[in-house]
């Protein structure tokens, strides 16, 4: 099957995607779809967004040549520095755009879910900037792991609601955000944080994240006069990965590699590697790969990183894998922690635990990438993770 840049009118990427929500949400979803399609071509909206991305977020982010790490492992590695975005991760690209969109729709309130807290902080920031009320849902297990981000959101004037049901992580926060949306559908926009959920979210979030790929494409051509051999990114819901992949999909010689959370290993069952351990299901609005039991119940996932700890994956990734345009592998908690400390020591960059999965994968497979030109999407910075990593390191001793 040929890759098409835009999903069909029902939001399908091949067999994946679609729009599986209750009837109460359908009018809001349709309004969102119409507004997004209109604003995509609206020069005023696009200019306003561009101006915020430049002057507020700090775009374009650098494409940095990681010289020491490259020398050590004998590849040529560039890092796309999304960690240098305002609020510390790529999440702001989408959050800001969606809150701006919400304002255009006349909504006065936004809600969001968050796992690692980065999307919550980004949405809280955009809401504060653009003057909308904001509430963020977060699993209590994630609040424990990411207490610093909880406080940051509160400082930004956002109400953070802890979710104590189910696995107390990202998927439960999404359920609760949907419940809030159903109840306040007239005045509220749901700022979904990843390229997941019901159409138009996977498409819309990719479009808002594609700025990463657009920049990286130009930057690598300028720096190296050629395209990379591989582009690597971590995949939770998959927004940073689809953002950087989107510009390289048409250049078939560029390998696209997504890295999922391997947790304590696939055999242990304690992981969030949907492609390694899942099958197709319908979950939280979309049809994609899902970690589920034999009866179609979503399984509890595990990852050291809250942002990758999720039972399903964006439908466009399922499609890219199906047509063999992208491949997906995983890094275990241990490999991610190795990526975390190696990048800190070698390059003076502390990456987010999510992005550390991509780094850890690359280090473990260094031999395979020998002499190759690689772009790795460093989706976020690790300030939020240092306390957790400290605890883990102390426990290991």
């Amino acid at each position, binding site marked *: 099957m040929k890759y098409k840049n835009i999903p069909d009118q029902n939001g399908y990427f091949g067999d994946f995607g679609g729009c599986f*929500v209750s*009837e109460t949400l359908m009018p809001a979803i349709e309004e969102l779809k119409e507004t997004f399609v209109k604003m995509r071509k609206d020069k005023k909206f696009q200019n306003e967004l561009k101006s915020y991305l430049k002057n507020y977020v700090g775009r374009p982010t650098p494409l940095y040549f990681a010289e020491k790490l490259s020398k050590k492992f004998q590849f040529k590695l560039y890092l796309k520095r999304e960690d240098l975005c305002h609020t510390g991760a790529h999440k702001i690209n989408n959050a800001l755009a969606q809150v701006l969109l919400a304002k255009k729709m006349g909504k006065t309130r936004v809600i969001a879910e968050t796992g690692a807290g980065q999307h919550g902080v980004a949405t809280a920031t955009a809401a504060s900037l653009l003057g909308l009320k904001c509430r963020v849902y977060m699993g209590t297990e994630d609040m424990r792991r990411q207490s610093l981000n909880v406080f940051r959101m509160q400082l930004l004037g956002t109400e953070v609601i802890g979710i104590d049901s*189910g696995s107390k992580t990202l998927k439960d926060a999404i359920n609760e955000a*949907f*419940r809030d949306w*159903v109840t306040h559908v007239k005045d509220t926009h749901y700022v979904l944080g990843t390229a997941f959920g019901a159409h138009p979210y996977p498409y819309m979030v990719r479009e808002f994240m594609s700025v990463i790929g657009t920049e990286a494409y130009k930057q690598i051509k300028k720096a190296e006069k050629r395209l990379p051999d591989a582009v690597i990114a971590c995949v939770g819901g998959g927004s940073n990965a689809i953002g950087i992949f989107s510009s390289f999909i048409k250049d078939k010689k560029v390998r696209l590699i997504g890295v999922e959370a391997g947790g304590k290993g696939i055999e242990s069952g304690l992981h969030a590697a949907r492609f390694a351990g899942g099958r197709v299901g319908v979950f*939280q609005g979309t049809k994609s790969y899902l970690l589920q039991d034999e009866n*179609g*119940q*979503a399984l509890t996932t595990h990852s050291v990183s809250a942002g990758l700890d999720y039972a399903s994956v964006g439908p466009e990734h399922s499609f890219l894998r199906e047509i063999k345009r992208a491949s997906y592998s995983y890094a275990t908690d241990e490999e991610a922690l190795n990526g975390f400390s190696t990048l800190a020591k070698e390059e003076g960059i502390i990456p987010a635990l999510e992005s550390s999965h991509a780094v850890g994968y690359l280090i473990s497979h260094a031999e395979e990438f020998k002499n190759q030109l690689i772009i790795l999407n460093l989706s976020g910075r690790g300030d939020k993770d240092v306390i957790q990593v400290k605890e883990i390191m102390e426990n290991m001793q």
Partner: protein
Amino acid sequence: MNKITKVFEELLKKNQKAFIPYLTAGDPDIETTEKILELYASNGADIIEIGVPFSDPMADGPVIQAAMERALKNSISLKKILNLVSNFKKKYSTPIILMGYLNPFFSYGFEKFAKDAKASGVDGILSVDLPPEEATPFYKALKNQEIISIFLATPVTNQKRLHAIQKFAEGFIYMVSVAGVTGERKNLDEGLIEKIQEVKKTIRLPVALGFGISSPEMIQKYYSHLDGFIVGSALINRMENDLKNQSPFEELKTFFLSLAKVCH
């Protein structure tokens, strides 16, 4: 004619409303569900709605969420639920609707499920997260087995959506009383009656009201505008009290009878 349509037609002749109680299958175990199904069927239920537990019930409030969690802890499955229906149908003819989320049905396989559901005596299916735009494959599989598909209409459903729903809806329209999740409420949506009238004008099917119904008085208030009433969380709350008090479902039964009485 399917049994659900027949129930509404017969009640209309008697100038009565359909009373449709809900329970979550396997909450907290299969034995309890069997007992409650019998209680419902022998005390005036016209149709029974059985909830299929799902790990992520996005449209449900805390009461049904908790019920589903309890059921899943005791490893309820669609297969066990079909078995439950099959046993129930040996004794009772009350029509059964399974209400749930799409993935357990999808995981079972639409064709295989429709066949097994028919064999067990299931009369209708309502998948909450399946809007008409996505309904075709499941709808066709069910239609082949003469099982009807039920759809929701809500206070925010507009004309365009009603026309989309009309293409697939059979039996009756499940009118959601509030923009929100399931659970007992003191008041329902302000413009509800106008919306019910709009639905009735567009779709030629009986309309039953669900979500939020908490008392016989509430049913009385909307009685003349509707063809049936669905009650879920309010019944589960009573059942839970009975389980806590180790009473043989006395509170549940008293409340149940008061609801059945206003409907008939």
